[in-house]
């Protein structure tokens, strides 16, 4: 560490002899009977004062430095080692409410630069701050629950306890996200599914009633109705599949992906799966990839679904006999994958809401194309989990571009239960 007081000390040490020399010279000249040399005197005094100032500064800075930057480490090595290996984030606060120690899991939450910082700067959670403020020495430990909603929903339990004997407070976090999500999953699933399944179900049961009633012996009508029922049943199946995969993705959204994935391969296999659909519309899918693209951290199945959904949309809403262009490029520390169609484009005011669940630009058209209204919501959640960004651009009459940017990282993060996403 640079010590500024050393510099001040050097200045002082240089200036003192100089001032003394000047003073001595003035005295000598005066003694030899020459004229009064008031300028020399003044100069000597001035340099002397400067030296005194430098000396004072050195002393002050020295005082600041002399106080240790952090108080002596209160933790024995064994305790430190044990805390360090705990899977749950743990923070020790000193008597002034500043961070004295954070284990590896906690550093994943608050960052590596935590020492001597106040709690509310590190963890901006009023409930914890309040619990810490209210904790008296030796008072019973407090448990508070809190949630964060961005970038995705997480739930924690914080355990706050202040020691009766030593001057510190423990803050221990416990991740409740998985439990809460499972609890909530069922309710959300039923709420979403019941609302969206009602329409196709009503159609199917309506046709069943008709077939039982006056269309019982009408062969042509029977054929037609069975066709419609089959389409509606297929839609319900797709809807349930999409809802299930959305739920699955949401459940794991807070777990960072661990595999290195070759995106070009993922995109090509997703395109291959869509080939029959594209051929039916006579649309060509063209993939251009920069050579030697870096791999990204990802979940291969989810990434395949991501690009399948994007390309499927491009095929569905693209111009018949048109092109779907997929480009992969590495820009800075990001891998950018753009899926471009040449369809009609999306109205400007619909773009920011496309990734909403069950939002449809054109309800009738989406139904015709067999959309569930969940495709882009799934895309958004997958991108979120991969710490990426989805941007959508569209020009009326010319087509739309969906761009996914994924970060390129050198190595997989340590598998901690809590990531930096708090």
């Amino acid at each position, binding site marked *: 560490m640079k010590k500024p007081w050393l510099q001040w000390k050097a200045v002082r040490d240089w200036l003192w002899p100089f001032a003394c020399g000047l003073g001595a010279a003035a005295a000598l000249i005066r003694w030899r009977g020459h004229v009064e040399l008031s300028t020399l005197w003044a100069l000597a005094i001035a340099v002397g004062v400067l030296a005194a100032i430098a000396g004072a500064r050195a002393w002050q800075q020295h005082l*600041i430095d002399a106080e240790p930057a952090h108080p002596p480490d209160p933790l024995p090595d064994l305790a430190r080692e044990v805390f360090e290996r705990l899977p749950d984030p743990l923070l020790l606060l000193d008597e002034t409410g500043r961070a004295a120690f954070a284990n590896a899991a906690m550093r994943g939450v608050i960052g590596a630069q935590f020492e001597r910082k106040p709690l509310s*700067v590190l963890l*901006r*959670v009023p409930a914890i701050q309040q619990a810490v403020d209210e904790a008296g020495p030796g008072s019973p430990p407090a448990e508070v629950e809190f949630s964060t*909603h*961005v970038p995705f929903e997480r739930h924690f339990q914080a355990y706050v306890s202040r020691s009766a004997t030593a001057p510190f407070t423990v803050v221990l976090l416990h991740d409740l996200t998985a439990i809460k999500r499972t609890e909530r999953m069922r309710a959300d699933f039923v709420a979403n599914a019941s609302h969206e399944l009602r329409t196709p179900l009503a159609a199917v049961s309506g046709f069943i009633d008709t077939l039982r009633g006056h269309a019982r012996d009408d062969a042509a009508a029977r054929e037609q109705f069975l066709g419609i029922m089959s389409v509606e049943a297929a839609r319900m199946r797709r809807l349930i599949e999409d809802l299930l995969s959305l739920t699955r993705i949401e459940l794991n959204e807070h777990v960072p992906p661990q595999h290195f994935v070759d995106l070009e391969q993922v995109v090509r296999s997703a395109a291959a799966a869509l080939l029959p659909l594209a051929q039916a519309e006579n649309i060509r899918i063209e993939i251009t990839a920069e050579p030697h693209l870096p791999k990204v951290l990802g979940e291969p199945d989810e990434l395949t679904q991501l690009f399948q959904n994007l390309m499927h949309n491009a095929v569905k809403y693209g111009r018949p006999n048109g092109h779907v262009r997929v480009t992969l490029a590495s820009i800075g520390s990001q891998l950018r994958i753009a899926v471009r169609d040449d369809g009609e484009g999306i109205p400007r*005011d619909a773009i920011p809401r496309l990734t*909403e669940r069950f939002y449809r630009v054109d309800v009738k058209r989406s139904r015709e194309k067999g959309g569930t209204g969940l495709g882009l919501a799934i895309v958004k959640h997958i991108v979120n989990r991969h710490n990426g960004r989805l941007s959508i651009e569209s020009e009326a009459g010319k087509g739309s571009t969906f761009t996914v940017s994924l970060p390129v990282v050198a190595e997989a993060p340590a598998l901690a239960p809590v990531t930096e996403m708090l």
Partner: protein
Amino acid sequence: MTDHTVRAFGEKLEALTTSVAQVGGLAEVQLADAIEAISRRDTAKAENVIASDRRIDQLQYQIEDQSLKLLALRQPMAGDLRETLAALKMASELERIGDLAKNIAKRAIVLNREPPIRLTMSLARMGRQVEAQLKQVLDAYARRDAQSAKAVWQQDGEIDEIYNSLFRELLTYMMEDPRTIGLCTHLLFVAKNIERCGDHCTNVAETVYYMVNGEHLAADRPKADTTSETSVPYGSP
């Protein structure tokens, strides 16, 4: 924070930063709870938000006192001066966010008495986006990260776009069925409040940028709120 020769000054400045972080944390929770009160139809939570607003007000007064004392007694210069003024400005912006959250919570209580409407989900989603902005800008303040603050400042256009879209949709709802006008008006104000929260986030972002760099962001922020010029003709779908 740079070392100060007078240590008490450094401590006072740090205490000020801590208080701002606390107001920020409270504003975050208030906004999140208000939006959850709407999306989960949780009236108890809404009442809690309304009751907790006083804490933000108290902390704001405290920050005003702290910064005035700092200005009067220590005469901070350069970066320290900007930091003190930034605390003062941020406290009032964050207090406004708290007020808007309180207003959203009040409307949530009314909305929760009415039958559920799908559009509240879109509102909640918009709210989440503003929450993300608020978190990012407060993180930027804690880390003194001007670039991150600038990113928030640039993203506000997205929230304006969502607001435009919701505004149009609500207008068409009301035209289709005048019985929904009461409900939709509340939703309209909720959407506007959320959008205002987003604007306050960009103000905070500007303050953080100025505090770190000592220069202002360019005057023309990307603005995309066009609802003041929007009308939907009667009878259109």
